[in-house]
Protein backbone atom coordinates (compact mmCIF):
# COMPACT_ATOMS: atom_id res chain seq x y z
CA UNK A 1 0.00 0.00 0.00
CA UNK A 2 2.84 2.35 0.92
CA UNK A 3 4.53 1.54 -2.37
CA UNK A 4 1.34 2.37 -4.28
CA UNK A 5 1.04 5.73 -2.51
CA UNK A 6 4.67 6.52 -3.31
CA UNK A 7 4.14 5.52 -6.96
CA UNK A 8 1.01 7.70 -7.29
CA UNK A 9 2.77 10.57 -5.56
CA UNK A 10 5.68 10.26 -8.01
CA UNK A 11 3.31 10.18 -11.02
CA UNK A 12 1.46 13.29 -9.77
CA UNK A 13 4.79 14.99 -9.25
CA UNK A 14 5.89 14.19 -12.81
CA UNK A 15 2.57 15.33 -14.28
CA UNK A 16 2.48 18.64 -12.40
CA UNK A 17 3.97 21.72 -14.02
CA UNK A 18 7.21 22.47 -12.25
CA UNK A 19 8.10 25.98 -11.24
CA UNK A 20 11.85 26.32 -11.62
CA UNK A 21 13.50 27.11 -8.34
CA UNK A 22 14.89 30.60 -8.09
CA UNK A 23 17.86 31.56 -5.95
CA UNK A 24 17.05 32.66 -2.44
CA UNK A 25 18.36 36.21 -2.19
CA UNK A 26 17.11 36.78 1.36
CA UNK A 27 19.68 38.49 3.51
CA UNK A 28 21.51 41.61 4.57
CA UNK A 29 24.28 42.79 2.26
CA UNK A 30 26.80 45.62 2.21
CA UNK A 31 28.69 47.00 -0.77
CA UNK A 32 32.38 46.12 -0.81
CA UNK A 33 34.86 49.01 -0.96
CA UNK A 34 36.23 50.04 -4.35
CA UNK A 35 39.53 48.33 -4.99
CA UNK A 36 38.44 45.04 -3.42
CA UNK A 37 39.08 42.06 -5.68
CA UNK A 38 36.85 39.05 -5.22
CA UNK A 39 37.63 35.47 -6.33
CA UNK A 40 37.60 35.32 -10.11
CA UNK A 41 39.02 38.84 -10.34
CA UNK A 42 35.59 40.43 -9.83
CA UNK A 43 35.63 44.04 -8.70
CA UNK A 44 33.48 47.16 -8.65
CA UNK A 45 33.49 48.99 -11.97
CA UNK A 46 32.20 52.36 -13.08
CA UNK A 47 30.55 55.10 -11.07
CA UNK A 48 27.64 57.53 -11.42
CA UNK A 49 30.30 60.26 -11.59
CA UNK A 50 31.36 58.88 -14.98
CA UNK A 51 28.04 59.27 -16.82
CA UNK A 52 28.16 61.22 -20.07
CA UNK A 53 25.61 64.02 -20.23
CA UNK A 54 24.11 65.76 -23.24
CA UNK A 55 25.46 69.35 -23.56
CA UNK A 56 22.34 71.02 -22.15
CA UNK A 57 22.23 68.57 -19.22
CA UNK A 58 25.93 69.19 -18.55
CA UNK A 59 25.28 72.95 -18.45
CA UNK A 60 22.36 72.39 -16.09
CA UNK A 61 24.48 70.22 -13.77
CA UNK A 62 27.15 72.95 -13.53
CA UNK A 63 24.51 75.49 -12.51
CA UNK A 64 23.05 73.35 -9.72
CA UNK A 65 23.37 74.57 -6.15
CA UNK A 66 25.08 71.59 -4.50
CA UNK A 67 23.67 72.66 -1.13
CA UNK A 68 20.28 71.56 -2.45
CA UNK A 69 21.51 68.06 -3.10
CA UNK A 70 18.72 65.67 -1.98
CA UNK A 71 21.40 63.77 -0.05
CA UNK A 72 22.04 66.83 2.11
CA UNK A 73 18.39 67.36 3.02
CA UNK A 74 17.65 63.75 3.92
CA UNK A 75 15.61 63.00 0.80
CA UNK A 76 15.68 59.80 -1.22
CA UNK A 77 18.51 59.85 -3.76
CA UNK A 78 17.18 57.18 -6.11
CA UNK A 79 18.47 53.65 -6.73
CA UNK A 80 21.07 54.62 -9.37
CA UNK A 81 22.98 56.80 -6.95
CA UNK A 82 22.19 54.93 -3.74
CA UNK A 83 23.47 51.54 -4.82
CA UNK A 84 26.86 53.08 -5.67
CA UNK A 85 27.30 54.88 -2.35
CA UNK A 86 30.14 53.40 -0.28
CA UNK A 87 29.05 51.03 2.51
CA UNK A 88 25.41 50.99 1.42
CA UNK A 89 23.65 48.29 3.41
CA UNK A 90 20.54 46.63 2.02
CA UNK A 91 18.18 43.90 3.08
CA UNK A 92 16.43 41.79 0.45
CA UNK A 93 13.09 40.33 1.51
CA UNK A 94 11.67 38.00 -1.14
CA UNK A 95 8.02 36.97 -0.81
CA UNK A 96 5.85 35.28 -3.41
CA UNK A 97 4.68 38.34 -5.29
CA UNK A 98 7.61 40.69 -4.87
CA UNK A 99 11.09 41.31 -3.63
CA UNK A 100 11.30 44.15 -1.12
CA UNK A 101 14.58 46.01 -0.87
CA UNK A 102 15.16 47.87 2.39
CA UNK A 103 18.02 50.22 3.14
CA UNK A 104 19.67 50.71 6.52
CA UNK A 105 20.01 54.37 5.54
CA UNK A 106 16.25 54.55 5.23
CA UNK A 107 15.86 58.25 4.49
CA UNK A 108 18.16 58.20 1.48
CA UNK A 109 17.27 54.73 0.22
CA UNK A 110 13.70 54.21 1.55
CA UNK A 111 12.07 50.89 0.63
CA UNK A 112 11.58 49.51 -2.86
CA UNK A 113 8.95 47.00 -3.89
CA UNK A 114 9.88 45.00 -6.97
CA UNK A 115 6.72 43.39 -8.29
CA UNK A 116 7.17 39.96 -9.86
CA UNK A 117 3.64 39.25 -11.03
CA UNK A 118 2.70 42.32 -13.03
CA UNK A 119 4.08 44.57 -15.74
CA UNK A 120 4.46 48.31 -15.46
CA UNK A 121 1.32 50.25 -14.71
CA UNK A 122 -0.23 51.88 -17.75
CA UNK A 123 -0.89 55.05 -15.79
CA UNK A 124 0.95 55.98 -12.64
CA UNK A 125 2.03 59.13 -10.90
CA UNK A 126 5.81 59.56 -11.11
CA UNK A 127 7.51 58.73 -7.83
CA UNK A 128 10.94 59.15 -6.22
CA UNK A 129 11.81 55.49 -6.59
CA UNK A 130 9.80 54.71 -9.72
CA UNK A 131 7.73 51.66 -10.58
CA UNK A 132 9.82 48.49 -10.41
CA UNK A 133 8.91 45.14 -11.92
CA UNK A 134 11.12 42.07 -11.83
CA UNK A 135 11.62 38.78 -13.58
CA UNK A 136 14.05 35.91 -13.24
CA UNK A 137 16.41 35.16 -16.10
CA UNK A 138 18.05 31.96 -14.92
CA UNK A 139 19.66 32.83 -11.62
CA UNK A 140 19.56 36.57 -12.22
CA UNK A 141 16.83 38.88 -10.94
CA UNK A 142 16.25 41.54 -13.59
CA UNK A 143 14.56 44.69 -12.33
CA UNK A 144 13.08 47.18 -14.75
CA UNK A 145 12.18 50.59 -13.35
CA UNK A 146 10.45 53.54 -14.95
CA UNK A 147 8.04 56.19 -13.68
CA UNK A 148 10.55 58.33 -11.78
CA UNK A 149 9.81 61.91 -10.89
CA UNK A 150 12.61 64.37 -11.65
CA UNK A 151 13.52 65.15 -8.03
CA UNK A 152 16.56 62.91 -7.60
CA UNK A 153 20.04 63.46 -9.00
CA UNK A 154 22.14 60.96 -10.91
CA UNK A 155 25.35 61.77 -9.07
CA UNK A 156 27.01 63.98 -6.47
CA UNK A 157 27.91 66.55 -9.14
CA UNK A 158 24.34 67.70 -9.74
CA UNK A 159 23.49 65.66 -12.85
CA UNK A 160 19.75 65.80 -13.39
CA UNK A 161 17.48 63.31 -15.09
CA UNK A 162 13.98 63.52 -16.46
CA UNK A 163 10.90 61.38 -16.05
CA UNK A 164 12.20 59.39 -19.04
CA UNK A 165 14.84 57.76 -16.82
CA UNK A 166 14.86 53.99 -17.24
CA UNK A 167 16.90 51.67 -15.05
CA UNK A 168 17.65 48.02 -15.66
CA UNK A 169 19.27 46.28 -12.70
CA UNK A 170 20.62 42.74 -12.75
CA UNK A 171 21.20 41.04 -9.40
CA UNK A 172 22.65 37.59 -8.94
CA UNK A 173 24.10 35.66 -6.06
CA UNK A 174 27.63 34.47 -6.76
CA UNK A 175 28.50 30.79 -6.18
CA UNK A 176 28.73 30.13 -2.45
CA UNK A 177 26.07 32.73 -1.71
CA UNK A 178 28.43 35.14 0.07
CA UNK A 179 28.32 37.92 -2.52
CA UNK A 180 25.78 39.61 -4.75
CA UNK A 181 26.68 41.02 -8.10
CA UNK A 182 24.72 44.18 -8.90
CA UNK A 183 24.79 45.76 -12.35
CA UNK A 184 22.67 48.75 -13.29
CA UNK A 185 22.19 50.46 -16.61
CA UNK A 186 20.65 53.92 -16.75
CA UNK A 187 19.23 55.47 -19.87
CA UNK A 188 17.53 58.80 -20.29
CA UNK A 189 17.52 60.05 -23.89
CA UNK A 190 16.75 63.57 -22.64
CA UNK A 191 19.85 63.94 -20.44
CA UNK A 192 22.29 61.08 -21.01
CA UNK A 193 24.44 60.99 -24.18
CA UNK A 194 24.36 57.19 -23.99
CA UNK A 195 23.26 54.50 -21.55
CA UNK A 196 25.67 53.99 -18.67
CA UNK A 197 26.36 50.84 -16.66
CA UNK A 198 28.21 50.35 -13.40
CA UNK A 199 28.82 47.25 -11.27
CA UNK A 200 28.97 46.81 -7.53
CA UNK A 201 29.53 43.76 -5.35
CA UNK A 202 27.74 43.31 -2.06
CA UNK A 203 28.92 41.03 0.73
CA UNK A 204 26.37 39.02 2.71
CA UNK A 205 26.39 39.89 6.41
CA UNK A 206 25.15 37.91 9.37
CA UNK A 207 24.49 41.02 11.43
CA UNK A 208 21.12 42.63 12.00
CA UNK A 209 20.22 45.71 10.03
CA UNK A 210 19.77 48.71 12.32
CA UNK A 211 17.82 51.95 12.28
CA UNK A 212 19.88 54.74 10.76
CA UNK A 213 17.70 57.84 10.62
CA UNK A 214 19.08 60.84 8.76
CA UNK A 215 19.75 62.93 11.84
CA UNK A 216 23.29 64.09 11.25
CA UNK A 217 22.78 66.26 8.20
CA UNK A 218 20.25 68.73 9.52
Amino acid at each position, binding site marked *: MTGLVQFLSMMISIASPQTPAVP*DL*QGVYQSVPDGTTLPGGLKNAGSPAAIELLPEAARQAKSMDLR*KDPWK*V*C*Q*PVGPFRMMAKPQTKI*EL*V*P*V*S*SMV*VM*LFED*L*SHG*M*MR*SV*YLKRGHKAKAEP*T*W*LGDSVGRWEGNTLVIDTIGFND*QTWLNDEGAQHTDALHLVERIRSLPGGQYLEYKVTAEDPKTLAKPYTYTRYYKKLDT*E*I*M*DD*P*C*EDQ*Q
Partner: protein
Amino acid sequence: MKKMLLVALLLRVGPIGPQLAFPQNAREAPDWTGYYALATARDLAGTGFKQDFPNEELNSLIIAHLQPWAKARMEATDGIADDTGQVCLPDGIFRYPSMAGRFLWLQERGRIVMVFGLVNTAGVRRIYLDRPHPKNPLPTWNGHSIGRWEGDTFAVDTVGFNDKSWLFGGMEPHTEEAHLIERVRLVANGVFMEISITVEDRHALTSAYTYKRYYKKQPDTAEMPENVCNEDPETWKAFRNAALKKQLDRAKVVK
Protein backbone atom coordinates in the same frame (compact mmCIF):
# COMPACT_ATOMS: atom_id res chain seq x y z
CA MET B 1 22.46 27.87 46.84
CA LYS B 2 18.89 26.89 45.96
CA LYS B 3 17.73 30.31 47.11
CA MET B 4 20.30 32.02 44.90
CA LEU B 5 19.21 29.91 41.95
CA LEU B 6 15.57 30.81 42.55
CA VAL B 7 16.42 34.52 42.74
CA ALA B 8 18.43 34.24 39.53
CA LEU B 9 15.51 32.54 37.79
CA LEU B 10 13.04 35.14 39.04
CA LEU B 11 15.25 37.94 37.77
CA ARG B 12 15.64 36.27 34.39
CA VAL B 13 12.04 35.40 33.64
CA GLY B 14 10.11 38.24 31.99
CA PRO B 15 6.59 38.33 30.61
CA ILE B 16 7.34 36.52 27.35
CA GLY B 17 10.84 36.99 26.04
CA PRO B 18 13.14 34.71 27.97
CA GLN B 19 10.58 31.91 27.90
CA LEU B 20 10.63 31.69 24.12
CA ALA B 21 11.89 28.54 22.50
CA PHE B 22 14.14 28.87 19.47
CA PRO B 23 14.54 28.44 16.63
CA GLN B 24 11.28 28.86 14.78
CA ASN B 25 10.83 29.23 11.06
CA ALA B 26 8.38 31.84 9.77
CA ARG B 27 7.94 29.97 6.50
CA GLU B 28 6.66 26.88 8.31
CA ALA B 29 4.00 28.93 10.06
CA PRO B 30 0.77 30.23 8.53
CA ASP B 31 1.69 32.79 5.91
CA TRP B 32 0.11 36.16 6.71
CA THR B 33 2.19 38.04 4.16
CA GLY B 34 0.19 40.96 2.83
CA TYR B 35 -0.70 44.58 2.98
CA TYR B 36 -2.83 45.65 5.96
CA ALA B 37 -4.52 48.95 6.82
CA LEU B 38 -6.18 50.10 10.04
CA ALA B 39 -9.82 48.99 9.91
CA THR B 40 -12.48 51.65 10.00
CA ALA B 41 -15.68 51.39 12.03
CA ARG B 42 -17.44 50.69 8.73
CA ASP B 43 -15.04 47.83 7.94
CA LEU B 44 -15.76 46.28 11.33
CA ALA B 45 -19.53 46.82 11.33
CA GLY B 46 -21.39 43.58 11.97
CA THR B 47 -18.26 41.57 12.70
CA GLY B 48 -18.46 41.69 16.48
CA PHE B 49 -15.03 43.31 16.60
CA LYS B 50 -14.27 46.95 17.34
CA GLN B 51 -11.23 49.08 17.95
CA ASP B 52 -10.61 48.80 21.65
CA PHE B 53 -9.94 52.25 23.14
CA PRO B 54 -10.18 54.06 19.78
CA ASN B 55 -7.70 56.84 19.14
CA GLU B 56 -9.83 59.53 20.77
CA GLU B 57 -9.89 57.48 24.00
CA LEU B 58 -6.38 56.07 23.95
CA ASN B 59 -4.70 59.18 25.37
CA SER B 60 -6.99 59.00 28.42
CA LEU B 61 -6.15 55.33 28.94
CA ILE B 62 -2.41 55.99 28.82
CA ILE B 63 -2.49 59.17 30.92
CA ALA B 64 -4.41 57.29 33.63
CA HIS B 65 -1.42 54.94 33.88
CA LEU B 66 1.35 57.56 33.97
CA GLN B 67 3.46 58.03 37.05
CA PRO B 68 3.42 61.62 38.40
CA TRP B 69 6.83 62.55 36.96
CA ALA B 70 5.80 61.21 33.55
CA LYS B 71 2.59 63.22 33.64
CA ALA B 72 4.58 66.34 34.54
CA ARG B 73 7.00 65.63 31.68
CA MET B 74 4.04 65.21 29.33
CA GLU B 75 2.59 68.55 30.40
CA ALA B 76 5.95 70.26 29.83
CA THR B 77 6.37 68.79 26.37
CA ASP B 78 5.64 70.96 23.35
CA GLY B 79 3.55 69.06 20.81
CA ILE B 80 5.31 70.72 17.91
CA ALA B 81 8.77 71.70 19.07
CA ASP B 82 9.45 68.31 20.62
CA ASP B 83 7.77 66.13 18.01
CA THR B 84 10.48 64.45 15.97
CA GLY B 85 7.87 63.26 13.50
CA GLN B 86 7.23 66.88 12.54
CA VAL B 87 10.70 67.03 11.00
CA CYS B 88 10.49 63.61 9.39
CA LEU B 89 12.63 61.84 11.96
CA PRO B 90 11.46 58.61 13.56
CA ASP B 91 8.79 58.96 16.23
CA GLY B 92 8.65 55.32 17.24
CA ILE B 93 6.16 52.53 16.69
CA PHE B 94 3.76 53.29 19.53
CA ARG B 95 1.97 56.08 17.68
CA TYR B 96 1.45 55.64 13.96
CA PRO B 97 0.25 52.04 13.79
CA SER B 98 -2.53 52.87 16.26
CA MET B 99 -3.49 56.17 14.70
CA ALA B 100 -3.60 55.49 10.98
CA GLY B 101 -1.39 52.51 10.41
CA ARG B 102 -0.83 50.63 7.25
CA PHE B 103 1.96 48.15 6.80
CA LEU B 104 3.40 45.31 4.81
CA TRP B 105 3.68 42.10 6.81
CA LEU B 106 6.44 40.05 5.18
CA GLN B 107 7.29 36.56 6.37
CA GLU B 108 10.67 35.15 5.58
CA ARG B 109 13.13 32.64 6.97
CA GLY B 110 13.85 33.40 10.60
CA ARG B 111 12.04 36.71 10.80
CA ILE B 112 8.95 38.72 10.06
CA VAL B 113 9.42 42.19 8.66
CA MET B 114 6.85 44.96 9.10
CA VAL B 115 7.33 47.93 6.81
CA PHE B 116 5.13 50.85 7.80
CA GLY B 117 3.47 53.21 5.34
CA LEU B 118 5.06 56.26 6.95
CA VAL B 119 8.45 54.70 6.52
CA ASN B 120 10.45 57.79 7.52
CA THR B 121 8.82 58.13 10.91
CA ALA B 122 7.54 54.65 11.84
CA GLY B 123 10.27 52.82 9.94
CA VAL B 124 10.76 49.09 9.68
CA ARG B 125 10.41 46.40 12.33
CA ARG B 126 12.16 43.10 12.21
CA ILE B 127 10.72 40.41 14.47
CA TYR B 128 13.26 37.65 14.89
CA LEU B 129 12.17 34.04 15.35
CA ASP B 130 15.57 32.47 15.72
CA ARG B 131 17.22 34.27 18.61
CA PRO B 132 16.59 35.75 22.03
CA HIS B 133 16.97 39.43 22.81
CA PRO B 134 20.58 40.56 23.11
CA LYS B 135 21.69 40.93 26.72
CA ASN B 136 22.31 44.65 26.34
CA PRO B 137 20.36 45.83 23.30
CA LEU B 138 21.36 49.15 21.84
CA PRO B 139 18.37 51.43 22.55
CA THR B 140 16.58 52.21 19.29
CA TRP B 141 13.36 53.86 18.17
CA ASN B 142 11.66 50.56 17.38
CA GLY B 143 13.41 48.36 19.91
CA HIS B 144 14.43 44.74 19.46
CA SER B 145 11.59 42.35 18.67
CA ILE B 146 11.41 38.59 18.93
CA GLY B 147 8.40 36.42 18.26
CA ARG B 148 7.03 32.93 18.45
CA TRP B 149 3.97 31.08 17.25
CA GLU B 150 1.56 29.86 19.90
CA GLY B 151 -1.06 27.94 17.96
CA ASP B 152 -2.86 30.43 15.75
CA THR B 153 -1.37 33.40 17.61
CA PHE B 154 1.94 35.10 16.99
CA ALA B 155 3.39 36.50 20.22
CA VAL B 156 5.85 39.37 19.92
CA ASP B 157 8.08 40.71 22.66
CA THR B 158 9.93 44.00 22.22
CA VAL B 159 12.48 45.65 24.48
CA GLY B 160 15.45 47.96 23.91
CA PHE B 161 13.61 51.16 23.09
CA ASN B 162 15.27 54.53 23.36
CA ASP B 163 13.37 57.10 25.44
CA LYS B 164 12.81 59.62 22.65
CA SER B 165 9.39 58.52 21.42
CA TRP B 166 5.95 59.01 22.92
CA LEU B 167 3.43 56.35 23.82
CA PHE B 168 0.81 58.16 21.73
CA GLY B 169 0.06 61.57 20.23
CA GLY B 170 -0.58 63.16 23.66
CA MET B 171 3.19 63.36 24.32
CA GLU B 172 3.11 60.60 26.95
CA PRO B 173 6.72 59.69 27.73
CA HIS B 174 8.28 56.32 28.36
CA THR B 175 11.72 55.21 29.45
CA GLU B 176 14.22 52.72 28.07
CA GLU B 177 12.48 50.17 30.29
CA ALA B 178 9.40 50.20 28.05
CA HIS B 179 8.30 46.68 27.21
CA LEU B 180 5.85 46.00 24.40
CA ILE B 181 3.95 42.71 24.29
CA GLU B 182 1.79 41.98 21.27
CA ARG B 183 -0.44 39.04 20.47
CA VAL B 184 -1.32 38.85 16.81
CA ARG B 185 -3.92 36.66 15.12
CA LEU B 186 -6.14 36.66 12.09
CA VAL B 187 -9.88 36.83 12.72
CA ALA B 188 -13.08 36.84 10.65
CA ASN B 189 -11.73 34.21 8.25
CA GLY B 190 -8.51 36.09 7.73
CA VAL B 191 -10.12 39.40 6.78
CA PHE B 192 -8.64 41.21 9.79
CA MET B 193 -5.41 41.06 11.74
CA GLU B 194 -6.05 41.58 15.44
CA ILE B 195 -3.19 42.93 17.51
CA SER B 196 -3.56 43.00 21.26
CA ILE B 197 -1.05 45.53 22.56
CA THR B 198 0.24 45.63 26.13
CA VAL B 199 2.72 48.26 27.24
CA GLU B 200 4.57 48.15 30.52
CA ASP B 201 7.25 50.46 31.83
CA ARG B 202 8.05 50.20 35.52
CA HIS B 203 9.70 53.62 35.51
CA ALA B 204 6.98 55.59 33.70
CA LEU B 205 3.72 53.70 34.25
CA THR B 206 1.89 52.77 37.41
CA SER B 207 0.81 49.52 35.76
CA ALA B 208 0.56 48.01 32.30
CA TYR B 209 -2.22 48.96 29.90
CA THR B 210 -3.72 46.94 27.06
CA TYR B 211 -5.78 47.72 23.99
CA LYS B 212 -6.55 46.12 20.65
CA ARG B 213 -6.31 47.23 17.06
CA TYR B 214 -7.76 45.62 13.93
CA TYR B 215 -6.15 45.93 10.51
CA LYS B 216 -7.93 44.91 7.34
CA LYS B 217 -6.06 42.78 4.85
CA GLN B 218 -6.02 44.59 1.53
CA PRO B 219 -6.67 42.84 -1.80
CA ASP B 220 -3.66 41.11 -3.36
CA THR B 221 -3.65 43.74 -6.11
CA ALA B 222 -3.37 46.62 -3.61
CA GLU B 223 0.08 48.12 -3.25
CA MET B 224 1.42 50.27 -0.45
CA PRO B 225 2.14 53.67 -2.00
CA GLU B 226 5.47 55.43 -1.72
CA ASN B 227 5.48 57.98 1.07
CA VAL B 228 8.34 60.47 1.30
CA CYS B 229 7.92 62.59 4.42
CA ASN B 230 10.40 65.26 3.43
CA GLU B 231 9.17 66.03 -0.09
CA ASP B 232 9.44 69.77 0.39
CA PRO B 233 12.74 70.71 2.08
CA GLU B 234 11.74 74.35 2.53
CA THR B 235 8.64 73.44 4.56
CA TRP B 236 10.74 70.93 6.46
CA LYS B 237 13.37 73.54 7.27
CA ALA B 238 10.69 76.01 8.41
CA PHE B 239 9.23 73.38 10.77
CA ARG B 240 12.68 72.47 12.06
CA ASN B 241 13.74 76.06 12.64
CA ALA B 242 10.46 76.89 14.42
CA ALA B 243 10.93 73.84 16.63
CA LEU B 244 14.54 74.73 17.41
CA LYS B 245 13.55 78.31 18.27
CA LYS B 246 10.87 77.07 20.67
CA GLN B 247 13.38 74.74 22.31
CA LEU B 248 15.87 77.60 22.62
CA ASP B 249 13.27 79.97 24.11
CA ARG B 250 12.28 77.33 26.62
CA ALA B 251 15.91 76.72 27.60
CA LYS B 252 16.34 80.46 28.22
CA VAL B 253 13.29 80.50 30.52
CA VAL B 254 14.58 77.50 32.46
CA LYS B 255 17.99 79.14 32.81
